C-alpha cells in the first residue's frame, strides 16, 4: 500500500513540470550519451573486424616470416596441410617515373595470381577499369603489369597505361586499385600501395639477402578444420622456427588493441563527463529539494514518516533519471551512425553498424549508479528536514546528518561505480589511475571550496560596499560557491591536462625533432654495396652520412634460461619476447649514449657474445647486467650475456636498437646495412636520384614524409581527444550554469533590496563581477595545478616522454575558464538586475 501512495505523491509533485530538472536531465543524458556512444562505436568497429576477419587476414591461417622465405620443406608441408597456399610478399621500395622523372617510396605487394593459390583467397579486389587481377598483373607484350592506389598516380603524376621503373625492370600501370580486401587503412604506411605478381618481384631483383621483405604464406583450410589442432601440428612439425602464425581468431590484434585503447580512453573521458555531470545531478537534486523543504515539513506534520519522504523523492529522481538515461542511450546508440559519416575513411576497417546491447547496458548502469550516488546525499538530508521549522517560518537551515544506513548506501553505490569503471576496459592500471585522480581532484576541489569559504568568512569585512557584498555572497549559507568550484574546477582540470599533453606532444613532434633529424633513411643496403653507397653520398654537394650500421633480424628464444613464450605478450615489454627484432653490432659506444648500468665492451673485444640492452626492456622484463638472453637468428641459437643497460631516446631519429651486440658474434651472419643521411634541402632530390640509379634495390625513406605521417596520425588522435574533451567541458558548463541558476532567485531578491536601499545597477553589477572573478580565479588556479600534475603523470608514466610546463597553453585554458565563469554569472546577474523592484517585493 505504501509504495503506490509514494508513487502517487511523486507523480503529483512532478506535475508542476521539469523546470528544476533541466540541468539534471542534461548532465545525465550527456554523460550516458558519451559512454553509450563510445561503447557502441567501439563495438561496431570490433564487429567490423570480427565479421571480416577472413577477408582482413586474407586466409584462414597465415605464416609470416621477415627477411627470409620459408624453406622448400616448409612450403611443401604448408601446401600438404591446406586446401590452397598463396604467397604474398610486402616490402618498401622506390617506384620511379622512367628517364629521371619523379620517384616515391611505395608499399609494394607481390601476390600469387594463378590457380587455387590466386590472391585473394578471401574477398574481392576491385580495379578501375574493371578487369581480373591476374590479367592486370600478367606479362603482356613483354611488359609486366601493376596496379596502384590512386595516391601513387597523384604523387608521381602518372595515369593508367604509363610505365614505372621498379628495381631492374619496368612495369606498366594497367588499372587503379580501388579495393584491397586485406588492407587495414589508417595504419602506419609510408607510401601508397603498388601491387605486382610474384614473378615480377623476382624479376625486379629487389629481394636480396637480408632485405626487409615480409613473406606471408596464406592458407585456406577445410571449413571443418580445427585451428588449434592445426597450430599444434605446425608447432610439432617445425618446433623452433621463428615465424609468426596468425589465424582468423587472432586477426588484426594491433587494430583491436588500438580500438580497445582508444575506446577505454574515450570511455574514461565519457566517465569524466558523467562524474562532472554527477556533481550537476547532485546540485540539481539539492536545489530541487531545497525548494521542496516546506512540502516535506508539511508532509511530516501530516504524519508521513522519513522513509515515505525518501521514497517519494527517490521515485521522482528515479523517473527523471530513467528519462535522462533513456535519452542518452538513444543518442549514444545513434552516435556511431553520425560519427561514421564524419570518420569515413579514417577508421582502420569498415565498422558494422548495429545496436549493441552490451555498451548500452554498461552506459545505463553507469548512469543509474551516478544518478543514485550523487542524488543520495541530498535525498538523505531531505529525509531529515525538521518539520518543527514550519512553526517559525525558518525552513531549511540546519538538517541533521543522515543515518549511518544512508551513508553506507552511498558508500556502496560509489564502490559499485568504481568497480564498473575498473571492469569496463582491459587496462585496469589506467582505470585505477583515472579513478584515483578523479576522486583526488573532486576532493581537492571540495577542500578548496570549503577552505575558500572559511578563509573569506574570516577576512575582516572590507569598507567598500561592492567588495563587502561580493565576499558575503561567496560565504553566505546556501551560496553556490562549492558547486561552482567543484564543477568548473573538474572541467577546467580536464582541459588544462589535455592542453598540456597535446602541447608537449606537439612540441616533441614538430619543434624538437627537425633540428636533429636527418633527411633520409636508407634501408636494404647490401654489405657489398656499402662502398658505392658511401661514395655516392659523398659525391653530392652537402651530402653527409650521419650513421650507417649493420642490421640483422631475429627473435628472442630464452630470457634468463626461461623460454620467451612464458612471458605474457600483452604486458609491457611483451613485444621483446614475442616479436621479431632488429639487432646491430658495434665496437664503440655511440656518442651521447647514457649507460644506466654496466660498462661498454673494449673496442677490440673478441670473447663470448655480449649485448647492450635498452634500459626500458631490462626494466619491463627484469633483465639485469650479467643475465643471459638467447637469440634465434636465422635458425641459429646464440646465448649472450647482458654487458650493460642503455637509455634510448627514440625521439632523436637516430638509428637505435634495443639489442646491440659486441663485435665478434654476428659479422658472419647475413645482414644488410641501414643508414641515415643528411643533405641540404636543395640537394635532397639529387641525392635520392643518384642513389636510386646507382643502387636500385636500396629504398629511401624521406624523414619529412615519416614526420608528416606521424603528424597526420597524431592529428587524427588529438582531434578525437579534443572532441571528447569538449563533452567534459559541456558537462562542466552545464553544471556551472546549474549552480549559478540555483542561486538566481536569491540574487534577484538581493539586487532588488540593494536597489531599494539606493544602490545603482552599476554598484550591484560591480559587486557581482568581483564575486565571479574571485570564484573563477581561485578555481582556475587550482585547476591549473591539478591539471599540470595530471599531465605530468600521463607524459612521464604513460607516454614516457619529456615533460615541459607550457605556461601559455595552461594560462589560456585557465583564463578561458575565468572568463566563462564571469560571463555565465553575469548573464544571470543581468537578468536579476533587470527585475522590477515592486514586482519582486510584492511576492516576498
Amino acid at each position, binding site marked *: 500500500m505504501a509504495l503506490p501512495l509514494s508513487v*502517487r505523491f511523486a507523480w503529483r509533485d512532478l506535475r508542476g513540470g521539469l523546470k528544476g530538472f533541466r540541468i539534471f536531465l542534461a548532465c545525465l543524458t550527456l554523460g550516458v550519451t558519451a559512454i553509450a556512444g563510445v561503447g557502441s562505436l567501439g563495438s561496431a568497429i570490433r564487429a567490423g573486424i570480427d565479421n571480416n576477419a577472413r577477408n582482413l587476414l586474407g586466409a584462414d591461417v597465415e605464416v609470416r616470416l621477415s627477411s627470409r622465405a620459408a624453406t622448400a620443406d616448409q612450403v611443401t608441408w604448408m601446401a600438404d596441410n591446406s586446401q590452397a597456399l598463396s604467397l604474398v610478399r610486402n616490402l618498401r621500395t622506390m617506384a620511379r617515373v622512367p628517364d629521371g622523372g619523379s620517384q616515391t617510396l611505395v608499399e609494394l605487394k607481390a601476390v600469387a595470381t594463378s590457380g587455387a593459390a590466386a590472391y585473394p583467397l578471401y574477398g574481392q579486389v576491385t580495379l578501375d577499369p574493371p578487369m581480373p587481377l591476374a590479367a592486370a598483373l600478367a606479362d603482356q607484350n613483354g611488359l609486366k603489369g601493376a596496379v596502384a592506389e590512386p595516391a601513387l598516380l597523384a604523387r608521381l603524376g602518372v595515369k593508367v597505361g604509363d610505365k614505372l621503373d621498379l628495381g631492374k625492370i619496368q612495369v606498366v600501370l594497367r588499372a587503379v586499385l580501388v579495393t584491397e580486401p586485406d588492407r587495414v587503412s589508417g595504419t602506419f604506411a609510408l607510401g601508397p600501395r603498388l601491387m605486382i605478381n610474384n614473378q615480377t618481384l623476382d624479376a625486379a631483383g629487389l629481394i636480396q639477402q637480408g632485405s626487409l621483405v615480409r613473406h606471408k604464406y596464406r592458407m585456406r583450410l577445410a571449413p571443418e578444420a580445427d585451428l588449434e589442432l592445426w597450430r599444434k601440428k605446425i608447432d610439432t612439425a617445425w618446433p623452433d622456427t621463428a615465424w609468426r602464425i596468425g589465424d582468423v581468431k587472432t586477426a588484426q590484434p594491433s587494430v583491436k588493441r588500438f580500438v580497445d585503447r582508444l575506446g577505454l580512453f574515450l570511455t574514461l573521458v565519457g566517465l569524466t563527463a558523467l562524474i562532472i555531470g554527477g556533481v550537476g545531478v547532485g546540485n540539481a537534486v539539492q536545489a530541487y529539494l531545497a525548494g521542496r523543504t516546506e512540502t516535506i515539513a508539511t*508532509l511530516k*506534520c*501530516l504524519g508521513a514518516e522519513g522513509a515515505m519522504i525518501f521514497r517519494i523523492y527517490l521515485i521522482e529522481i528515479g523517473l527523471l533519471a530513467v528519462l535522462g538515461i533513456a535519452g542518452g542511450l538513444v543518442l549514444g546508440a545513434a552516435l556511431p551512425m553520425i560519427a561514421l559519416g564524419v570518420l569515413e575513411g579514417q577508421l582502420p576497417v569498415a565498422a558494422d553498424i548495429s545496436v549493441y546491447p552490451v555498451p548500452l547496458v554498461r552506459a545505463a548502469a553507469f548512469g543509474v549508479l551516478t544518478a543514485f550516488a550523487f542524488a543520495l546525499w541530498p535525498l538523505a538530508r531531505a529525509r531529515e528536514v525538521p518539520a518543527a521549522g514550519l512553526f517559525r517560518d525558518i525552513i531549511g537551515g540546519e538538517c541533521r546528518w543522515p543515518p549511518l544506513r544512508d551513508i553506507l548506501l552511498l558508500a556502496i553505490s560509489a564502490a559499485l561505480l568504481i568497480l564498473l569503471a575498473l571492469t569496463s576496459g582491459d587496462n585496469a592500471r589506467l582505470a585505477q589511475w583515472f579513478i584515483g585522480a578523479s576522486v583526488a581532484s573532486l576532493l581537492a576541489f571540495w577542500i578548496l571550496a570549503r577552505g575558500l569559504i572559511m578563509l573569506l568568512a574570516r577576512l575582516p569585512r572590507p569598507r567598500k560596499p561592492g567588495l563587502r557584498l561580493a565576499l558575503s555572497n561567496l560565504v553566505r549559507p546556501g551560496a553556490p560557491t562549492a558547486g561552482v568550484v567543484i564543477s568548473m574546477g573538474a572541467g577546467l582540470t580536464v582541459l588544462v591536462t589535455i592542453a598540456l599533453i597535446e602541447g608537449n606532444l606537439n612540441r616533441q613532434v614538430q619543434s624538437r625533432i627537425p633540428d636533429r633529424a636527418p633527411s633520409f633513411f636508407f634501408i636494404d643496403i647490401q654489405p657489398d654495396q656499402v662502398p658505392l653507397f658511401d661514395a655516392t653520398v659523398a659525391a653530392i654537394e652537402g651530402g653527409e652520412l650521419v650513421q650507417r650500421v649493420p642490421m640483422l633480424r631475429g627473435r628472442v628464444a630464452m630470457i634468463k634460461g626461461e623460454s620467451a613464450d612464458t612471458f605474457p605478450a600483452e604486458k609491457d615489454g611483451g613485444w621483446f619476447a614475442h616479436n621479431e627484432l632488429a639487432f646491430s653490432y658495434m665496437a664503440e659506444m655511440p656518442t651521447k649514449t647514457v649507460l644506466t648500468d654496466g660498462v661498454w665492451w673494449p673496442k677490440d673485444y673478441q670473447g663470448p657474445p655480449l649485448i647492450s640492452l635498452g634500459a626500458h626492456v631490462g626494466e619491463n622484463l627484469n633483465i639485469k647486467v650479467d643475465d643471459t638472453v638467447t637469440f634465434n637468428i636465422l635458425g641459429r641459437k646464440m646465448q649472450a650475456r647482458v654487458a650493460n643497460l642503455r637509455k634510448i631516446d627514440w625521439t632523436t631519429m637516430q638509428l637505435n636498437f634495443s639489442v646491440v651486440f659486441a663485435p665478434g658474434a654476428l659479422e658472419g651472419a647475413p645482414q644488410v646495412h641501414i643508414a641515415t643521411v643528411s643533405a641540404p634541402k636543395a640537394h635532397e632530390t639529387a641525392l635520392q636520384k643518384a642513389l636510386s640509379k646507382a643502387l636500385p634495390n636500396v629504398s629511401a625513406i624521406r624523414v619529412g614524409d615519416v614526420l608528416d605521417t606521424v603528424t597526420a596520425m597524431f592529428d587524427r588522435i588529438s582531434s578525437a581527444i579534443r572532441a571528447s574533451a569538449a563533452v567534459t567541458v559541456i558537462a562542466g558548463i552545464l553544471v556551472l550554469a546549474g549552480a549559478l541558476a540555483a542561486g538566481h532567485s536569491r540574487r534577484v531578491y538581493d539586487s532588488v533590496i540593494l536597489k531599494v536601499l539606493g544602490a545603482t545597477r552599476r554598484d550591484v553589477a560591480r559587486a557581482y563581477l568581483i564575486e565571479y572573478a574571485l570564484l573563477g580565479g581561485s578555481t582556475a588556479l587550482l585547476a591549473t595545478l591539478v591539471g599540470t600534475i595530471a599531465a605530468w603523470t600521463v607524459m612521464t608514466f604513460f607516454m614516457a616522454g619529456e615533460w615541459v610546463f607550457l605556461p601559455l597553453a595552461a594560462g589560456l585554458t585557465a583564463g578561458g575558464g575565468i572568463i566563462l565563469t564571469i560571463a555565465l554569472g553575469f548573464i544571470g546577474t543581468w537578468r536579476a538586475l533587470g527585475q522590477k523592484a515592486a514586482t519582486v517585493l510584492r511576492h516576498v
Partner: protein
Amino acid sequence: MDMASVSGETLVDLQDLHLTLDSGAGAVNILRGVDLQITRGETLGVVGPSGSGKSTMLAVTAGLERPSSGHVNVAGKDLGLLNEDQLALFRRKHVGIVFQSFHLIPTMTAHENVAVPLELAGDPDAFERARESLADVGLSDRLTHYPTQLSGGEQQRVALARAFVGEPDLILADEPTGNLDSETGAAIIDLMFGIRRDLTLMLITHDDQVATRCDRVVRMADGKLEPTALGQTPAADVSLAAS
C-alpha cells in the same frame, strides 16, 4: 502539583517541560518548566508576546520537537518513548495542525491537499471524505484549484479542512488568523469552532478576542505559563507552571 478542576479524560499532559537550544550566541532557554493539562473536548487559548515559547510548546505537543527534559503525554501516548517514525504515525492518527502560513502543498489541488492525511492513514475513502470536508468549509467549488489559485482565506479554509478531515483527537492551531484580514480571520475562527462539537483545541493567538472564544486561556511569557483573566472559565481553574 495543582490539578485542573475540569472533569473528564486528560488528553494532553505536559509536565515540567524544559527546552534549551544551542545557537551561535550560546544556549537559549525556550521553555523553562511548563506544566499543562488539557481534557478531551476542551479548547485552550495560548496568548503571549513573540518569542515567549508558544509555538515551541505547540511543536513539542505535536511531537515535532523533543523537550530537553520533562514529559509529554498526548492521547495516552508518552511521546518521549516514540521514535521519529512512530511520532509520524502518532500525528497521523491523533493530531491535526493549522498554521499561520497555511502550508498547503503547492503541487497538489485543494482536494488532494485535504486527502493527504487520509491517504497516509490508508483510508480507501480518502477522496470522498476530503470532498465532504471541503464542503464543510464551503469550498465544494474549489476542489481542483491549486493553492496559488486560492485567496488567503480560502487557503486557510483548505488547511482547516485538512486538519479536521481525519477526525483527530487534538487540533493544534498556530495563529491561524495571523496572515488574514480581521473579517476573514473571524470567519475562519467561526468555522474552526463550528466544525466539531467535541473539539479539543490548543490555539495560539495574539488576538484576545479570538482567545476569549476558548474554554480556557493561558499566557506564555519567557518560557513559562501564567494565569490570565481571559477565557470562559475562571482563571483560577488553570493549572500553572510551578517552577
